[in-house]
């Protein structure tokens, strides 16, 4: 979830610390990151994947412990996929397949493959993408969907383990919450766009409840993935055995 939630939640958390007013782009990212450390979150979401050939909606429950970089996702619906689970421990990921009652590790070579059929990659889920991996520059302010937004450019540092060439973030000037992120590849080609909307209070924080990811490469025309957070809580303790491989096989 990091790649999706992190960016937004980091910034969301940033609002609390923004009393001193926005400084530089780095300050914004840094404060947000500092606040994000130690966050436990838990909730339910709905993922809708649209392709030219089919459309599917999955409901799932997720637990995240970003301090120890752990995450657990369990599919609740539809019935055919119910029980499928995904566990991330650091840079590793396992899947549980209830139909055959087996779990398997996702090999490093498959990290760029689709996560649960969506336009997100396993890498998106697993990568501990930190603001520290990028150099941030404040480019401009603009207006997106009628809201004033900072335009922040993030360029990966030379040795950063990052797959993008550049990320442009549009963050609301009012509370730094992201409205949009454009991802560019190493050749400077815009390859996907994430838009954030449906801002609402959940678990005591204001967050964007809908994330829409649209790949912009020719081979994925007509594809998109939408995540809707149905409910979410922050900083409630999560049982330690949630993030274990044994829990994968615990049918629910």
């Amino acid at each position, binding site marked *: 979830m990091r790649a999706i939630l992190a960016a937004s939640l980091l910034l969301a958390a940033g609002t609390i610390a923004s009393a001193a007013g926005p400084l530089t782009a780095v300050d914004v990212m840094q404060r947000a990151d500092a606040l994000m450390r130690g966050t436990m979150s838990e909730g339910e979401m709905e993922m809708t994947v649209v*392709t*030219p050939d089919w459309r599917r909606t999955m409901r799932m429950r997720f637990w995240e412990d970003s301090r120890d970089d752990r995450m657990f996702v369990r599919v609740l619906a539809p019935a055919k996929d119910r029980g*499928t689970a995904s566990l991330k421990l650091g840079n590793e990921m396992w899947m549980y*397949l209830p139909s*055959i009652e087996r*779990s*398997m590790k*996702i090999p490093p070579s498959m990290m760029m493959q689709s996560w649960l059929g969506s336009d997100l990659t396993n890498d998106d889920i697993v990568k501990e993408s930190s603001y520290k991996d990028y150099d941030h520059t404040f480019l401009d302010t603009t207006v997106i969907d009628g809201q004033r937004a900072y335009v922040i450019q993030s360029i990966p540092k030379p040795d950063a383990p990052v797959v993008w060439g550049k990320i442009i973030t549009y963050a609301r000037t009012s509370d730094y919450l992201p409205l949009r992120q454009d991802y560019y590849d190493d050749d400077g080609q815009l390859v996907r766009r994430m838009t954030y909307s449906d801002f609402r209070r959940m678990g005591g924080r204001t967050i964007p409840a809908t994330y829409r990811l649209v790949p912009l490469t020719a081979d994925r025309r007509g594809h998109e993935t939408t995540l809707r957070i149905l409910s979410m809580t922050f900083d409630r303790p999560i049982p330690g055995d949630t993030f274990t491989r044994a829990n994968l096989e615990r049918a629910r």
Partner: protein
Amino acid sequence: MKLLARLAWRSIWRNRRRTLLTTLAIAFGIGLIVITRGLQEGSFAQMIDVAVRRSPGHIQVHARGYWEKKDLAHTFPMAAVDTAGLVRIPGVAHVSPKLLVDALVAVGEDNSTGAQVVGVIPSLEQAMTVFGDSGIMEAGRFLMDGDTTDAVIGTTMARNLHAHVGDELVLFTQARDGSVAAALVRVRGIFHVGEPDMDGYLVMANLALMQNILVAPGRASIIALTVKDVRDVDRVRAGIERLLATRGGSARWEVMTYRQLLPELMQAVGFKRASSAIFLTLLLVVIAFGILDTILMSVMERFHEFGLMMALGMRGRAIAAMVFIEGLLLAVIGLAVGNAIGWGVNAWWQRHPVRLGGVAEAVESVGFQPVLAALPDLGQQATWSVVVLCMTLAVALWPAVVAARFRPAEAIQQA
């Protein structure tokens, strides 16, 4: 004209030795070309045969768009193709439907890798591909039609996954409707093809099993076919297209031959063909000068004769035509002899392949048969014969013009 031809025929036999040498030069040229091309085409045919038998087949039928996307959205109901009709098309040797998908495979919780899983009907696949060869299985055995919960994998994959015959193998991918697809199969055998992509990446399972887990009942990604004689491939392809014409035609289907299926190989073959064509053309140029020499000499020696003919009222043009016809006759005789010998050698070489000695093992290790065999090809022979014929006629042009320009009085005197 008839008279000229008769005169030309007589003329060429007046100096038998020269005629013999000229026709021999032509025969040697065309014969060498025919044998070289035959051997080369023989080795190309072998390369293609090896590649084709590794799995793609000579011809594949896909739903339109499959080759570009290679996904489950472009599968088709097998009932939509008249599979029995395909088998009956003259020239078709074997037919094998397959369902292909990229997947994750794992042995135990921690050993996993990416793979291409191919669902096949084992007996059909074995009849058609290298998987029917004895010795292909390094351990265990190949699938049988009833093995619906089994798979075979390559040696490299087996090594990477620490998999052995009898181990449980997890297949995990996404079904045609986007849902999670998973299967638990048993490793029935481990194959070694000698092609890294296959030994490290390919998993084969029963078609029915794959259709089931991929939510693609009765569907296939490709129907692969082999032909009895590779030279018939276009004719068979046309036959398939005729069969499919009433079932949606080219808007719905794509029918590809190995030329499209194996682009890199065909490119390499094309390059070799082009470079050998250049080499052989150079060879022809050398031979052409020899022919030019003999025809020109024969004209020069016959000053007196031509002068006399002209004095008797024959026109320069007729003389030129006669010399030209002489060239044509020489070419035809030479070509006939050369083609006959070339074809004979090729045919013999096709039936009696030469086993390579010292390098046999090296050749075999990269998956080729260590034999040299020719492939007689009358089409090739016809093409090159036309080239040689045109060349001889072009060369005869100059002596013909020279002969036509004689002044009768001078010519007679000179002699």
